[in-house]
């Protein structure tokens, strides 16, 4: 009886919470800023990846930018994924720069929670 109960608990633990895919930190692109511009039903997405590099004294931060255009945000993101060969980690993005007025939809679609949302027509200019 005890064993059956313990097996049930283990099965519950494994099934209740989704197990995220295994990704090494070196294969993880941590995105700090997301910029999305909509022009004539085309979405241009620019992602700013933050790359921390270990130095003799402390950490040095380098940045890499990825840009793609497609008919939807998801398609543009997928294009970037294919290009970088890394897992894009958008959830910790600090800011969202966009010309789309209803940025709430983007937040839901990308499952992000940026602390800053900037509305502008020139996203490239606003990116740090």
């Amino acid at each position, binding site marked *: 009886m005890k064993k059956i109960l313990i097996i049930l608990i*283990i099965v519950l633990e494994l099934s209740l919470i989704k197990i995220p895919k295994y990704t090494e*930190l070196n294969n993880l692109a941590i995105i700090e800023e997301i910029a999305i511009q909509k022009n004539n039903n085309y979405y241009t997405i620019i992602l700013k990846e933050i790359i921390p*590099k*270990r130095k003799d004294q402390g950490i040095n931060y380098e940045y890499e930018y990825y840009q793609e255009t497609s008919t939807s945000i998801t398609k543009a993101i997928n294009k970037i994924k294919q290009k970088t060969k890394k897992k894009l*980690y958008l959830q910790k993005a600090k800011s969202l720069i966009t010309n789309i007025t209803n940025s709430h939809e983007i937040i839901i679609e990308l499952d992000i929670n940026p602390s800053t949302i900037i509305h502008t027509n020139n996203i490239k200019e606003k990116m740090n």
Partner: protein
Amino acid sequence: MVNIMNLEKYLKNKLGPSKDYIFKKLIISKQKVTLIFNETLIDTTRTNDFILRNLLNLSKKDLKYLENKLPNINVLKINNNYIDYLTKGFIIIITKKYTYAVEVRNVLDRGIQTIESELSITGPKDSFTETYNINISLIRKRIKSPNLYAENIELGRITKTKIGILYMNNIAKKEIVKQIKDNLEKIDIDGIIDSSYLKQTLECKNNLFPTISLTERPDKASMALLEGKVIIIVDMSPYALILPSFLIDFFHTTDDYYQKSINTSFIRIIRLFAFLVAVFTPALYISITTRNYNLIPLDLLLTLKAGRTFVPFPAYIEALFMLICFEILKESDLRMSSTTGSAVSILGGLILGDAAVSAGIVSPIMIIVIAISSIASLTFSSIELGNALRNYKIILLILSTIFGINGLLVGTTILLYQLLTLKVFGIPYLNPIIPFEKNEIKDTIIKTNTNNPKRNSQLTHNINRGKYL
């Protein structure tokens, strides 16, 4: 039974070509007397002074009453078990009609030395030795009570090792004592070389946690006796077994009772924290760096990522590699003398660690994680508990590699299941926390000043305990 006329021939035949068995023939008052002994096991000075000198002065009539004529304590008239007596350091004296065994065993002893493995800041420094009688006397000196029973049995078909079962007759639960004795009597083995042999056979199977403590401290053994536990002492072993032992016992040291309660409580909380760190840190690190990044803040994630910049191996391989390296270092350090050992530690711990980080083979954070986890497991003096922690650490590491934080939860469930279902001589392993034992709860993790008038009812029969002033 061997005829006394043929005894010498029989023994020569039994003992074979060994040259340390001496057959010495004497003529005393015109009567032939043969002395048989093992020269490595007997004390030659005592033999010369108390046996030979006295024997040579005896008359023919006296030879019939040797037990009254020799000044030794153990002079026995025997008619069997000759080999047993010889191997125990007795001299066999064969006269015309009788055979005697006289104890003149050599004391092969390194003396009472200071503790090596369970160091304490305060408290006594003496430790058990390989000599059975000294070990018993170290306890008897502390507990001067006729209720301290020291029963003997012999185990080992070939070694015939003397095993002492010590308990307080007025405190210990008779059922537990009987169960221990029964378990010991069931052991059928060629030889008992050390108390650890018994530990393996008496310990609960199918569980990684230790249920018997080993101690070289007579004060710890005495404390355990007063708590109603049973001590097993094995001849030629400097470690006594304390049984039954529960998980909480491994969090306690003798020092806890030699200092203020508040300090004891603080250090016990630290030990509990060390226990958790030792088991969970590597697994938690692996799950948050390979699957569950969302559980940590961005700044920490960036620091962790920076640490792994040039590391070519997956995190779990790196963790296992580091764990193995630490075990190799620990093992080499244990087997070396203290002077060489410290050199190995410096070379392995500092130089190799630094070189590995510089070469980009391992990340500095991984070194911190494995080092803190391994050092935390060294907080416990019990090697067996350290081994259990290491095994669970590896199990959790593998589970969290496969399932992330879910794996860690599964591992924790298994760990809790093992702890909750384990019973030592019928008593739950988590006693006195689960089941709740109100008599003992004030001396578990938090030690309070209030005295517990009763002892652990699982081990005794609620007998009143002496109170502190």
